[in-house]
């Protein structure tokens, strides 16, 4: 397995002088190149802390994180780490720097010292990739939340990172904006092969991922394909997380004595499996 990010025995503690809070408590993970990984967890599960550790905003208390072979604690190479792992944050307003959409997308490449001509090309491509080309010359504060978040994503992909980490990018959006952003992320992963790590607490955004990691209390408690992870209904509920309604239905049926496989994620699959059971 070719991993882009490898995390080993990671521990992170917040120290405010009086109390020490352990946010990440011994995580080891390998993130495969080109994969779409969703990280699901409740507030305080340590998922946002994990995101900040991945591009060196925070550095591990102990353990190591290697990003494309570079240790994130290596201060001399921090820019290489950030070039490799782009970050999109929760609040779209607070990550847009410039007064015009295309200038904001250009901000990252400008920091990297890229030739103006090449920046122009990258900006156009990035805006195209998130479907915001027609808004290139708009003022960001006039866009909707979903559009702003897509601009933020464009700003990251214009730097040509290998991996994008999105820290609850849909938390402040309305349902339409949310769907927009998730579709954009999925398309980036499929079309351009960018590794995506999507951190969220919306269960249904994780269904399209290749791999689902569930975090609770700073630990990884589930790790596998979403289809498989969601069948562990009791475990998920123990950590205060819901499972897709289809899985919940099949689970109740199973409890009632009808033995069905639990791994149906779409309504059609679920109907199919109930139908085949009934026609036995």
């Amino acid at each position, binding site marked *: 397995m070719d991993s882009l990010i490898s995390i080993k025995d990671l521990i992170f503690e917040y120290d405010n002088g009086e109390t020490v809070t352990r946010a990440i408590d011994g995580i080891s993970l390998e993130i495969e190149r080109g994969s779409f990984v969703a990280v699901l967890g409740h507030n305080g599960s340590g998922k946002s802390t994990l995101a900040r550790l991945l591009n060196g905003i925070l550095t591990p208390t102990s353990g190591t994180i290697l990003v494309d072979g570079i240790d994130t604690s290596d201060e001399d190479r921090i820019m290489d780490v950030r070039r490799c792992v782009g970050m999109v944050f929760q609040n779209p307003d607070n990550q847009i720097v410039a007064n015009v959409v295309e200038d904001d997308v250009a901000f990252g490449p*400008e920091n990297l010292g890229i030739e103006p001509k090449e920046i122009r090309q990258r900006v156009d491509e990035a805006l195209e990739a998130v479907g915001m080309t027609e808004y290139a010359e708009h003022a960001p504060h006039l866009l909707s939340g979903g559009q702003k978040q897509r601009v933020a994503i464009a700003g990251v992909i214009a*730097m040509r990172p290998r991996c994008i980490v999105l820290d609850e990018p849909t938390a402040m959006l309305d349902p339409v904006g949310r769907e927009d952003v998730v579709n954009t992320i999925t398309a980036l992963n499929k079309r351009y092969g960018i590794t995506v790590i999507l951190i969220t607490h919306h269960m249904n955004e994780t269904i399209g991922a290749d791999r689902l990691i569930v975090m609770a209390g700073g630990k990884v408690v589930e790790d596998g394909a979403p289809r498989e992870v969601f069948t562990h209904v009791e475990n998920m509920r123990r950590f205060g997380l819901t499972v897709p309604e289809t899985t919940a239905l099949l689970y109740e049926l199973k409890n009632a004595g009808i033995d069905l496989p639990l791994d149906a994620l779409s309504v059609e699959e679920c109907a199919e499996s109930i139908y085949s059971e009934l026609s036995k």
Partner: protein
Amino acid sequence: MLRDVTLGQYFPGDTIVHRLDPRTKLTLTLIYIVALFLAVDYFSYAVMIVVLAACIIISKIKLRVILRGVKPLLIVIIITGLLNLFYTKGEPILSFWIIKITVEGIKRAVFMILRIVMLIMGSFLLTYTTSPVALTDGLESLLSPLKKLRFPVHELAMMMSIALRFIPTLIEETDKIMSAQKARGANFETGNLFQRAKALLPLLIPLFISAFRRADELAVAMESRCYNGGEGRTKMKSLHMAPRDWIALFLGALLLAGMIVMNVYKI
């Protein structure tokens, strides 16, 4: 309500004045101000008026709009005029009680008022025809020689442009907090000055806290995008001096030279 506040005073347009490079416009404004202070007699003032009028006509900005900028300073202008009128020594043409009005006084007062009004109009023309972003870029580029003296030119320009970026966001937020406080019975509209200022407190505190939180998040986001100060940074849109900029600068230099000659030889 707050959303209607226009930002800066930029009036978008597509005239030659609008299209000039911001550096050209900044330099020309400076030349214009210097020339204005060099003007001493009727002829040189006439020249300055013609130049200003020509610029206003070309920029297609309405005179009424430009004069609006003069209004808040009316009192200062009137006081300056009166002081010059009463305190200039010379041939008295009118005198009663302790007040003496002289010919020189009238002349000086008129010139002084003209100078201030034209100064304001000229600088307003700059901000009316140049977007704040272009103005910031222009300033950064013009001041860049100061970098050698360790003057933080890039940082200042970055601060200015971030401030411009966040003004609408903060206005929107102020609006939101105001509505929230009104819903809880806050009263921003009545009472005397002191009461109203006090009513603003529950508005300003949340606004400040949120501004600091935003600043913190923005800093993390900028760092994540490899921002490391101005060193080694490139720009996608570099400013570009077109032939029209050089022509405009040449005309500006001509004006300045003419004014100096007229000032020295008192033509």
